[in-house]
């Protein structure tokens, strides 16, 4: 049977895919925590209360407080929001620039394709995190620059996926039929190619989201990410470092949050791939 014969409702099988379900739960946990932090956190975190510092878990502070007396649960919730926003915008940058470039390369072929793909290779050749550090070091630390740095490395990823997907469709008769209908290349791309590669892009976006969260944590650990008073997991880890000996929970909680979110979005991406990619569908029958 045809590989592109995607059923219209792949989510009917969703409950059978364990990785999809676990991923969905973990990712939702992070997303909901971040979302709630927009309106409410258990405690405010922008005021220091040294008298309250390094408290253990209690009914007042569920996860205790840090060395400045800030509520850890509140910090984690705001950190979730920061990570997700940074990663989301970075994925958005990747989609916005990468997909058109990839589609352009696939439709124009020749020199255009060479130019796009070789530039991609060039960006790929640099280790992503290292170059992100370079960019934020040059432009100065901060949330915006972190987003730009991570976003740039998403562009070639999406360009590759889009080009590959478009090329696998290129011999299809329905594209010829569309050309016979007098449709322009751009129109055919928007009407036929893009909807047919949307699955691939959604899966890739989910995986890039988890990588983005990790990158944001890395940058803010080095002090190059979002600056205080905005909380971020990476900086929480950094600040916990000096306290490791007598308050290891300070490092444990943000570390766990990073693990849960990266694992969650990765599993979600894998699950989505199983559900949406018909070539792998046999695995979960």
């Amino acid at each position: 049977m045809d590989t592109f014969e995607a059923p219209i409702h792949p989510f009917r099988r969703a409950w059978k895919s364990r990785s999809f379900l676990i991923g969905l739960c973990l990712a939702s946990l992070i997303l909901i925590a971040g979302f709630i932090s927009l309106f409410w956190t258990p405690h405010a975190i922008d005021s220091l209360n040294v008298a309250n510092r390094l408290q253990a878990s209690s009914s007042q502070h569920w996860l205790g407080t840090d060395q400045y007396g800030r509520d850890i649960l509140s910090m984690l919730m705001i950190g979730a929001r920061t990570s997700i926003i940074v990663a989301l915008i970075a994925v958005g940058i990747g989609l916005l620039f990468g997909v058109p470039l990839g589609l352009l390369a696939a439709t124009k072929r020749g020199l255009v394709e060479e130019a796009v793909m070789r530039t991609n290779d060039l960006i790929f050749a640099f280790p992503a995190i290292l170059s992100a550090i370079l960019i934020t070091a040059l432009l100065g630390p901060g949330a915006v620059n972190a987003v730009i740095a991570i976003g740039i490395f998403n562009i070639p990823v999406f360009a590759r996926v889009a080009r590959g997907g478009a090329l696998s469709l290129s011999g299809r008769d329905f594209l010829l039929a569309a050309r016979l209908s007098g449709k322009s290349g751009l129109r055919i791309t928007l009407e036929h190619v893009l909807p047919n590669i949307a699955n691939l892009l959604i899966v890739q976006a989910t995986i890039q989201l988890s990588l983005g969260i990790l990158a944001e944590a890395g940058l803010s650990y080095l002090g190059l990410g979002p600056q205080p008073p905005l909380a971020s997991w990476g900086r929480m880890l950094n600040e916990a470092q000096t306290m490791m000996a007598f308050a290891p929970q300070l490092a444990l909680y943000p570390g766990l949050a990073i693990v849960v979110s990266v694992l969650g979005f990765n599993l979600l991406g894998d699950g989505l791939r199983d559900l949406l990619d018909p070539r792998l569908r046999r695995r979960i029958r």
Partner: protein
Amino acid sequence: MAVFSAKNLSVSINGTPILKNVSFSLAKGEILGLVGESGSGKSMSALAAMQLLPDGATQDGSIRYKKHEIVGASERTMNEVRGRSISMVFQEPMTALNPTKTIGDQVSEGLLWHFKMTRQRALERTQKVLERVGLPFDNHMLDRYPHQLSGGQRQRVVIAMAIACKPRFLIADEPTTALDVTIQAQILALLKEIVRKDQMSLLLISHDLAVVADMADRVAIMKDGEIVEHGPTGQLFRTLSHPYSQQLVEASSHIPKARTRPLDPDAKPLLAVEGLVRTYPLPKRSVFEKRQYHTAVNTVSLRILPHESVGLVGESGCGKSTLARTVLGLEEPTKGHISFLGKNPFEVSHKEEKALKRGIQAVFQDPYGSFDPRHTIAKTVAEPLHLLRHEISETAKNGKVIAALEAVGLKPQDAHKYPHEFSGGQRQRIAIARALVTEPQLIVADEPVSALDVSIRAQILDLLADLRDRLGVAYLFISHDLSVVQAITDRVIVMNGGRIVEEGSTEQVFRHPKHPYTRMLVAAAPDLNASLKRRHKAEIKARTARQKS
């Protein structure tokens, strides 16, 4: 005693029955033809015989090779049997061969495994087997890779792999379906010769009745996992008793009704092509090399009259599809002139171009690849109406879509469904509806029935003939299948190597082919009635000889 027999064999996959109580047997040196349409279970029978059933399959019944029971045999026993005693020739030689291994390695693999001979001895044997299947003798053949061979040569290699260990029972699953007719004739002759000489038993699986009638001693006709009729070939075709087998035979030699709308030979041609050349640049092997070009279409001229049906025949790579794409305006000619409705489609204004595009539409070969799986039928069929985008209203558009669907025998309700909800034949109807929606004068049909089962093929041919008379459309009908072209066209053009080698009325070209290539093509094309006649004559001859003695 039977070399191989299956008795009450039933196979189901995940609870869905695929084979139901199938029984057949083959004596030494006998050829059994297994015929049926797609989904009839013929390939599954072959897989069961090799015990290569897919995951989730359960089986019941008995399969015997000589005295050994195969159903339920251990994988270890089967590894001894496969290749050594029972062997198989696959359909698609390109995927049946490993692209990263040499021919010599692939053919000798079975010898090394089954006979534990030295590599030197195995390669010597391999050389002999390759000669046996008619591959040219040279020392390099063993070192070649599959991509360096032609399609026919590759299939010879696949046969060589199958017969290397001298199995007693050979299975050939659609061994020539992927090949051109002239190559098909050679491969079938080779298979027959090998089986006769070495006294092998052959299970020949095919959808093509003509091929089976020509090759097999006995024939079994399958439908929905059951053998509906079987017997000695000549007798079976003379006294078909099951309605399905009658229908199958009728459909395979089906000729749609003759045209009722007469042609006007003096009319201005709808399409005129003069001296058309289309070349493609070949990749350069080094930077300094002068670029080489491949001429796909070489100085071709043709005319199509209003509501005339013209067939374009040739083997793969002869340039027929390139010609079709150029005529459709999908590719620009390198040289030459195309005139459609009196205008050159490559030199007209944008508005005129839209009008010309409305006048010529296409139906493609693959009923699965020609639709966007994410668009409804309504959206798919309405797509060419993009050419009328500022001229007609949304309601008029819907009206045209419904009319086109009804013209091809589909219901207006079908408009809201998606392509995957339809069978192959229905999809081809939808493709025709899409081509009809702009009311074109000419439809270019590139192998429109090649991917369809014979009974569906007959229906689509009827539909095309009916539309020709009812709507007065002209066809450029491209096919490698001579019987299809013969059934539906008024005039035939034969192409070979990018050039037209013969042109004339369909009857004249098929009855009295002039060009040697056309003669070869006509002779090689399998024909059910001709092979049954030949068989009948041979039977009578044998009987009289027996009576004399």
